[in-house]
């Protein structure tokens, strides 16, 4: 693999292939309370074996109270303690909760908007629209919107009330909240559990995209795989324009994670928890430390929903600026907003019994089946929309949650492509200017704050998101609805 990486795991990880897409890591170490379960094809598995993904999956299987197995999804790669692209469910009473199982970017997630425009209709105005969005949505290092300021009091209310607070201030439409996971608000948020540093970081960054792998794309529906569901979600036909927003809780969430990792380090000693890796630091779900983290995490979750809501509002405004027409005329309806990094209290059937569990999804998307009460009423007959962003310039996917996901992966599926090349290697191989030219040759308009980021985020630096979606579909943990491809990319 040469430059594609990395430091191998500290030990050989035994692996049993159960079928073409399912692998089991047996309980080969004494501390493992359950096995590991990995959903991947041969190629994805080969890549996982070059870094610490599988070792980390086996480590997660050590967590007190963990049920069934530690899950690694098709996009799994090495993360902080837990692999990215993983799920772990622990017993609500006897299990632990771990900030590392959520990650630094709490509620990093995706939202998708539909329009009633076709690519052909938009094309003459596309560059102008991309410019307007690039102007209106702050992106890149240190960016912020000069005319959008909130007070510390506002921030505390926002993280308690979630997207509705920001919609009530004019940045959204009735019905937007209904189409967000958790209706855009986790109820247990408590800002008194969030540090002043986190709040200060969050104050200036609300409504900003950030940089790195975060992006905003104007896309078109490339192919529809499930007509009925696509129609229900508002994806009417191939060529229809959509907008995807991918970002998270910015400095607010990063600081919450950082602060509570420190708290958990002490908790591990206090509660005498034995772990194979200190990065799995956790606390019993019923402890004050866990309760505080969960309340602070919920604040960051709500911050991220609101962040994407503000950005979506400015996207709608950008359409208005370009066309001098009310944005409602273009549809611009929110299909759904999903979290990729989150911990939840959920009920799952384990050994034929209903169990209340802490579900950690780190780089994983909830994928609930039709009929689940957590799904918006208008989609409940179909199932929960799953949104998987690709890397810059490739494709993104809309999938559908399934009953199979409830059986196999605690109602979860993959969240993205997962990197293949290190950023350093990508920069050696590509130059931002070339990437831009290559994309523009394919008719993709590019607006980016940083040429460096363009090179680092080159699509060849990522695993093929189509394969990730395909494996998810084959395993049945979320089935294909539609494939989207970008026509304009806005990057930090």
């Amino acid at each position, binding site marked *: 693999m040469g430059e594609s990486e990395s430091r191998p795991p500290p030990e050989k990880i035994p692996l049993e292939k159960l079928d073409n897409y399912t692998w089991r890591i047996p309980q080969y170490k004494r501390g493992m309370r359950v096995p590991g379960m990995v959903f991947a094809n041969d190629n994805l598995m080969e890549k996982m074996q070059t870094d610490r993904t599988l070792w980390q999956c086996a480590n997660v299987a050590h967590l007190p109270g963990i049920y069934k197995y530690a899950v690694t999804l098709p996009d799994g790669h090495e993360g902080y303690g837990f692999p990215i692209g993983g799920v772990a469910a622990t017993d609500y009473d006897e299990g632990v909760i771990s900030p590392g199982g959520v990650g630094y970017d709490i509620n990093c997630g995706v939202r998708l908007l539909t329009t009633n425009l076709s690519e052909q209709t938009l094309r003459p105005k596309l560059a102008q629209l991309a410019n307007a969005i690039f102007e209106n949505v702050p992106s890149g*290092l240190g960016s912020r919107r000069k005319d959008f300021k909130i007070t510390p009091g506002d921030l505390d209310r926002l993280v308690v009330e979630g997207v509705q607070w920001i919609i009530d201030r004019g940045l959204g439409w009735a019905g937007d909240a209904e189409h967000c996971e958790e209706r855009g608000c986790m109820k247990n948020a408590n800002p008194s559990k969030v540090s002043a540093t986190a709040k200060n970081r969050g104050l200036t960054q609300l409504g900003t995209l950030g940089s790195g792998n975060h992006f905003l794309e104007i896309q078109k529906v490339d192919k529809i795989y499930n007509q009925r569901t696509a129609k229900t979600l508002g994806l009417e036909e191939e060529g229809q324009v959509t907008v995807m927003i991918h970002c998270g809780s910015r400095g607010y969430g990063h600081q919450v994670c*950082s602060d509570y990792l420190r708290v958990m380090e002490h908790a591990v000693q206090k509660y005498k928890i034995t772990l194979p890796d200190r990065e799995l630091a956790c606390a019993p779900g019923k402890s004050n430390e866990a309760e505080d983290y969960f309340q602070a995490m919920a604040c960051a979750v709500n911050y991220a929903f609101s962040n994407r809501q503000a950005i979506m509002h400015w996207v709608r405004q950008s359409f208005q600026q370009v066309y001098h027409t009310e944005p409602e005329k273009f549809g611009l309806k929110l299909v759904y907003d999903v979290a990729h990094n989150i911990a939840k209290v959920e009920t799952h059937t384990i050994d034929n019994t209903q169990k209340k569990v802490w579900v950690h999804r780190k780089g994983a998307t909830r994928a609930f089946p039709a009929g689940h009460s957590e799904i918006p009423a208008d989609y409940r007959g179909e199932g929960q929309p799953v949104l998987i962003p690709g890397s810059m310039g490739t494709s993104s996917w809309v999938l559908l949650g399934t009953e199979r996901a409830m059986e196999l992966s605690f109602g979860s599926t993959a969240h993205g492509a997962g990197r293949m090349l290190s950023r350093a290697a990508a920069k050696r191989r590509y130059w931002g200017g070339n990437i831009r030219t290559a994309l523009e040759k394919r008719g993709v308009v590019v607006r980016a704050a940083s040429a460096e*980021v363009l090179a680092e985020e080159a699509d060849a630096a990522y695993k093929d998101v189509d394969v990730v979606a395909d494996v998810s579909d084959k395993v049945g943990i979320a089935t294909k609805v539609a494939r989207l491809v970008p026509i304009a990319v806005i990057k930090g």
Partner: protein
Amino acid sequence: MEKAKKFEFMEHTADVYIAAHGATLAEAFENAALAMFEVMTDASKVAANAEDSLTVEAEDEYALLYSWLETLLVKFEINSMLYSQFKISSLEETAEGFKLTATVRGEKFNAAKHTQKVAVKAVTYHRMEIIKTLDKVTLEFILDI
């Protein structure tokens, strides 16, 4: 080999993996900070015309490195300050752990002047190492971006 590199970027798939070097722990800490700002911008274009003093305390050297970098990252995010010069005047063991005092110099971020590279989300303990030899200290750490 001539004068040793201040820092280098190592291979890591998702994030930024840095090795920072110094003749002393304090110098390695200074170079670690420089490396972090080099991730965000071209630090050579950051003028050293504003000065800040800071004190960081932590329970051990690893936590001190984490807190030192996090303190600077937070200063960037809250006050928009980019730094390019770092002078640690003391780094010592105390009754509670470790403490450093530093003077840092830089200027306010200006998108028209400063190269925009990648924003750093967080410092992590992932693969963090403090390697001390007779004449050199190397710090290895990963920044989440």
